[in-house]
């Protein structure tokens, strides 16, 4: 008797070894002998390090207390960080004036968020306020000496606050200087071009540490004797010059990426050099290099730790100094882990943000 099958028989389920957890493991961890060996080595490394680290940092750690005696267990002693957190954040800033620092940083946080978040109204106005009004407000909040705010000398500034001030001022001032240098480097005027090239290559060719040495040792000799400037300001000047050279190279990358037709079209419309730069070229070029700018900012943020070598108390320096306290000897690992996590969280989130921007902005120019 013949059997007539009119419909295809249902597909068999895939073999158990190629789907689900087993399938994933086979495809990703044990696809070959060599891969299996590597996977086992990797698992061994994780087994050896991760539980021990979690145990040390969280499970067996001491979190509360005010003295060294609170640290009884084998794990980390976060009490050390907790007791000194104010110093780590504000340095030797008088505690009664902490609100000024908090206000200044909250304000810039709100302003920057306003500018970065999409669909907030009046971006132009907020931008102008940030560029022209905020620095003045911040200066009087941090330094004081006016409007009834007592003056706080810069040698009392320290900790995370100093790190952020150095990084943001470095960024703020290096940006316009960098743009001018980048334009100068691409200029047709030989004098402007050579000055820019020499300036950029000089600062990019030397380590930041020598720049800081130079600003702290040589700068006082370059100016009249009665015009001595503050140690912090000297470091800032060094950082700004150094950073603007790097910024110039980033901006130059953007300028070079603009098609020649844009320059020619702007010229054909009868725009002057500055008008064509400000209305046609720079808006496109800067948009393209935002990720690069964020990356130089990350580098600068990490590099601010170097100021400890010329005797300024940034976050790392304050923590490093705290290790010498005879009451708290032997907690260097906790201190370093704390500083490292502050830097890591900031730098990692910024680099993720720049990657996100890169994807978002990569619309019209990728061909």
């Amino acid at each position, binding site marked *: 008797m013949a059997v007539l099958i009119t419909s295809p028989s249902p597909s068999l389920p895939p073999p158990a070894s190629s789907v689900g957890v087993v399938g994933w493991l086979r495809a990703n961890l044990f696809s070959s002998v060599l891969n299996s060996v590597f996977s086992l080595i990797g698992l061994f490394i994780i087994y050896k390090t991760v539980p021990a680290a979690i145990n040390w940092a969280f499970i067996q750690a001491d979190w509360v207390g005010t003295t060294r005696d609170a640290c009884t267990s084998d794990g980390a002693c976060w009490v050390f960080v907790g007791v000194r957190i104010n110093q780590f954040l504000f340095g030797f800033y008088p505690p009664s004036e902490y609100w000024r620092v908090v206000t200044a940083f909250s304000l810039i946080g709100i302003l920057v968020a306003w500018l970065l978040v999409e669909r907030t109204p009046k971006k132009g106005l907020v931008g102008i306020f940030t560029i022209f009004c905020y620095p003045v407000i911040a200066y009087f909040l941090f330094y004081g000496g006016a409007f009834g705010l007592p003056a706080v000398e810069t040698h009392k500034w320290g900790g995370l606050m100093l790190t952020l001030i150095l990084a943001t001022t470095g960024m703020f001032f290096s940006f316009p200087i960098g743009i001018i240098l980048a334009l100068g480097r691409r200029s047709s005027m030989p004098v402007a071009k050579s000055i820019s090239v020499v300036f950029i290559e000089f600062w990019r060719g030397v380590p930041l540490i020598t720049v800081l*040495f130079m600003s702290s040792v040589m700068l006082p000799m370059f100016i*009249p*004797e009665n015009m001595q400037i503050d140690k912090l300001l000297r470091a800032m000047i060094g950082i700004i010059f150094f950073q603007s050279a790097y910024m110039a190279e980033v901006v130059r990358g953007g300028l070079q990426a603009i098609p020649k037709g844009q320059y020619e079209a702007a010229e054909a419309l009868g725009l002057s050099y500055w008008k064509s730069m400000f209305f046609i070229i720079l808006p496109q070029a800067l948009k393209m290099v935002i990720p690069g700018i964020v990356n130089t900012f990350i580098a600068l943020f*990490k590099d601010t*730790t170097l100021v*400890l070598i010329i005797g300024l108390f940034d976050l790392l320096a304050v923590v490093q100094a705290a290790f010498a306290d005879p009451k708290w000897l032997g907690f260097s690992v906790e201190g370093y882990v704390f*500083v*490292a996590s502050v830097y890591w969280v900031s730098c990692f989130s910024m680099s993720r943000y720049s990657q996100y921007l890169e994807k978002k902005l990569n619309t019209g120019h990728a061909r």
Partner: protein
Amino acid sequence: MSNSSKKQHWWNNAQHRSLFFQIVLVVMLVGIVWFIASNTMGNLEKRGISTGFGFLSLKAGFGILQSLIAYDESYSFGRTFFVGLLNTLLVSALGIIVATVIGFVVGVARLSNNWLISKLAAVYIETFRNVPLLLQIFFWYFAVLRTLPSPRESWSAGESAFLNIRGLYLPQPVPEPGFSAVTWTFFLGVAVTIAIGIWARKRQNETGKQFNLLGLGFAFIAVFPLTVFFIAGSPLSWDIPKLQGFNFKGGMTIVPELTALLTALSVYTGAFIAEVVRSGILSVNPGQTEAASALGLHKSKVLKLVVIPQAMRVIIPQLTSQYLNLVKNSSLATAIGYPDLVSVFAGTTLNQTGQAIEIIAMTMSVYLFISLSISAIMNWYNKKIMIVER
């Protein structure tokens, strides 16, 4: 030109404007230089500091922790410059080698189809890239190496190598008469291998025939010198470190400052190089790999002949800039007291002599010279490989 320029005001002429602007720039520049120079002269005179490089021949009078050339307190300040420079070059060269190895291994691991290995590599890269280098140096130096035992309780390997808080003590090879023959054979082997390499590349370009250099090169560089070494009767003895009093004498010492700096530099730069390697390999169009496979090339040949040469074009410029960063970052040595150029010369020598301008200028010129010469080589290299691109 003649017609329009008559109607135009002279200040609206682009050439005149640019000339005027450049004159203003030059005047400003001269003004700044004059301002700085006159202030500096005045300040130096008031402080009673004499200018010039005469101080370089004065007696230094301070000791240096580690020196690759003969040095003690009786040598001159000029000598401290070279001691520091050599120490900088030492840590940079070692760091470049280690960082390259780490970077290539981790970069390839990041692209591995093994999920676990790829993620471990990612964790390594993201952890070390996002933490300041100075913090890492401090961590290795103060938190890791300071916990090593005292000289009396050193960890030892076979009673010839010792590790303690003062450093790593290793047996030092002492060449005896007849060892120079081995050295010469080695250099001869390297030269012959390079010559064969050039010939092989030329032949491959002309005929397409490949030549396996690996075995022959190994024979010339390793096997022949070793044979000569044994024929000459092993002319090499070892100076083994021994505990005398509170410390070890003899042998080779690797100071903990060097270990900490080298570890931090290579781990930090290695993370950046890994990203460079990854982006370089990813930049090769997958069509290239597919086309090579379609031509019937074996998997290893695809990598060697198609992927790596194209990836290298992307990798090498970025790699060089990472090397430059490493050389510049080695100046952080001064924070932990490793006697590099900045620490010895721009630190101790500057404090002893007070010749700030000369010393900072000399230090900066060294770094500037290294950077600019490597950039020049890079530009030349880029131009060379650009021609090949179609």
